[in-house]
């Protein structure tokens, strides 16, 4: 549904997107993850036709976004990060205007406005001037306009930024619901959001894709090192030093009585750790493996990228 090939975008001399390629299959919800200024918005703006790439090509719903921009745009619902709204219009007239621009006829517009207002819980605000709505409701109007023409592809740029937690939960629920029948590319820099809503994740950093896989695969791939958390009573520095000497242990960090031990994948030094601690005459309070969270993966990938340069 979305195909990106060797996409590159320069803003003047600044490189924003650096030769990226990826695919999003029909019906997938893909998280587009990266820190601020990683190139997420630029990529999305190219897909939606708002910007032209410097090099490379992209297809949405089978249409090339360069040569068949209008057809491609017809099949996209776009939620832009800035939530662009005409603040002097009512919710109804705004939705009507955008639905009309996307080629819906008057009869269909009427039923679709009812539908999206219902989906986005805007019933009471449909005749209110947008300028008078709070941030959370504006966000919903932004989502409503993106889905009003029932597009095959949804491109959502940070749809949950700056709204309260209840509305965030609601928006995520909404996205999951939409994803059943549509292809969604969702950008965010909030990590839990991706693991909650997406099946697959593309991590982008400084304009490059640093990882692309399902969330489970990513965590096992990154777990080139496993981590063990333990709690020990005793002299911290000395314990840490002894732990570092154990075979297979890469790194040990600690705070008070809590220690984190990193070891190579496939190794299980728990027995040796226990032995070491008992030999030293200290008290072991707990010991367990910890799964890497998406946050750790993200940090690991993006910091590795930096040191690699």
């Amino acid at each position, binding site marked *: 549904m979305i195909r990106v090939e060797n996409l590159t975008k320069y803003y003047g001399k600044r490189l924003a997107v650096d030769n990226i390629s990826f695919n999003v299959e029909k019906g997938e919800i893909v998280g587009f993850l990266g820190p601020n200024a990683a190139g997420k918005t630029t990529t999305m703006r190219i897909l939606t036709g*708002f910007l032209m790439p410097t090099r490379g090509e992209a297809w949405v719903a089978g249409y090339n976004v360069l040569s068949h921009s209008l057809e491609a745009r017809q099949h996209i619902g776009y939620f*832009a990060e800035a939530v662009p709204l*005409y603040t002097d219009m009512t919710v109804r007239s705004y939705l009507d205007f955008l639905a009309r621009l996307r080629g819906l006829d008057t009869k269909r517009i009427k039923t679709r406005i009812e539908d999206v207002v219902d989906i986005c819980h805007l019933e009471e605000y449909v005749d209110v001037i947008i300028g008078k709505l709070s941030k959370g409701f504006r966000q919903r109007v932004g989502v409503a306009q993106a889905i009003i023409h029932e597009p095959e592809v949804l491109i959502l740029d940070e749809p949950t930024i700056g709204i309260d937690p209840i509305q965030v939960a609601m928006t995520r629920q909404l996205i999951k619901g939409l994803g059943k029948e549509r292809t969604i590319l969702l950008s965010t820099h909030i990590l839990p959001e991706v693991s909650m809503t997406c099946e697959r994740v593309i991590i982008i950093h400084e304009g490059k894709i640093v990882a692309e896989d399902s969330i489970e695969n990513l965590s096992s791939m990154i777990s080139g090192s496993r981590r063990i958390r333990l709690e020990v009573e005793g002299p911290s520095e000395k314990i840490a030093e002894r732990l570092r000497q154990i075979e297979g242990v890469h790194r040990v960090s600690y705070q008070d009585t809590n220690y984190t031990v990193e070891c190579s994948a496939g190794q299980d030094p728990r027995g040796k750790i226990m032995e070491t601690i008992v030999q030293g005459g200290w008290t072991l309070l707990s010991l367990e493996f910890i799964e890497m969270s998406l946050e750790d993966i993200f940090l690991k990938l993006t910091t590795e990228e930096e040191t690699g340069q």
Partner: protein
Amino acid sequence: MRNTITIALKEFKSYLASPMAYVVTGIFLALTGFLFRYSAATYIETSIRGFVETGSLVLLLLAAVLAMRLLAEERKMGTLELLLTAPVRDSEVILGKFLGSLGILTAMLVLTFYYPILLMSFGDPDMGPIGTSYLGLFLLGCASLAIGIFASSLTSNQIVAAVVAGGILFALWFMGTVASYLPETVSEFISYFSLSTYVPAFTRGVVDSRGIIYYLSITALFLFLAVRSLENSRWS
């Protein structure tokens, strides 16, 4: 075409929803009203010439003010992203905005119809020059709006847009006057390109085809430039 009309109607409505159109119309009516009264009292003729000759300069500047928000505001508010990602051609966006603002300008001109109506009730004015004067004003309005839209497409600051439009309009308006200090052949050539050159003919009742072609060409040229400027923003 459908998209153009959708955008034109939206623009027209949003003018009516903001104080801008009312303020501009108010200023236009007040100034032209004064000019009309002044000319009616001093000229020994029942015509609207006095209002048209100076009023056209007022119209020109107010058109720049009307047009200044059309794209600059969209750029500033970020709503340009909505328009440029909708399945709509850039030319439809520009044409829609042009027609929407032309609607307001036309309404403004229609409101001044009471000047000739007053003349008719107190005298026997020659309707020919009045008709051609309005045609001239309308065409001049088209050209000014096109220039205003072009200026508005360049920036996200409405004031900058108005100043740029005002600059272009002033340069084109006074070009003929300035050129008159140059040798005759040169000045004649330059005055062909001046906005003010064709106004007197229209006020005298002449339907000057050169004038019509000139104003329409200026309109088309600047609308085209505005489309290009919009396209260009995708390549930034």
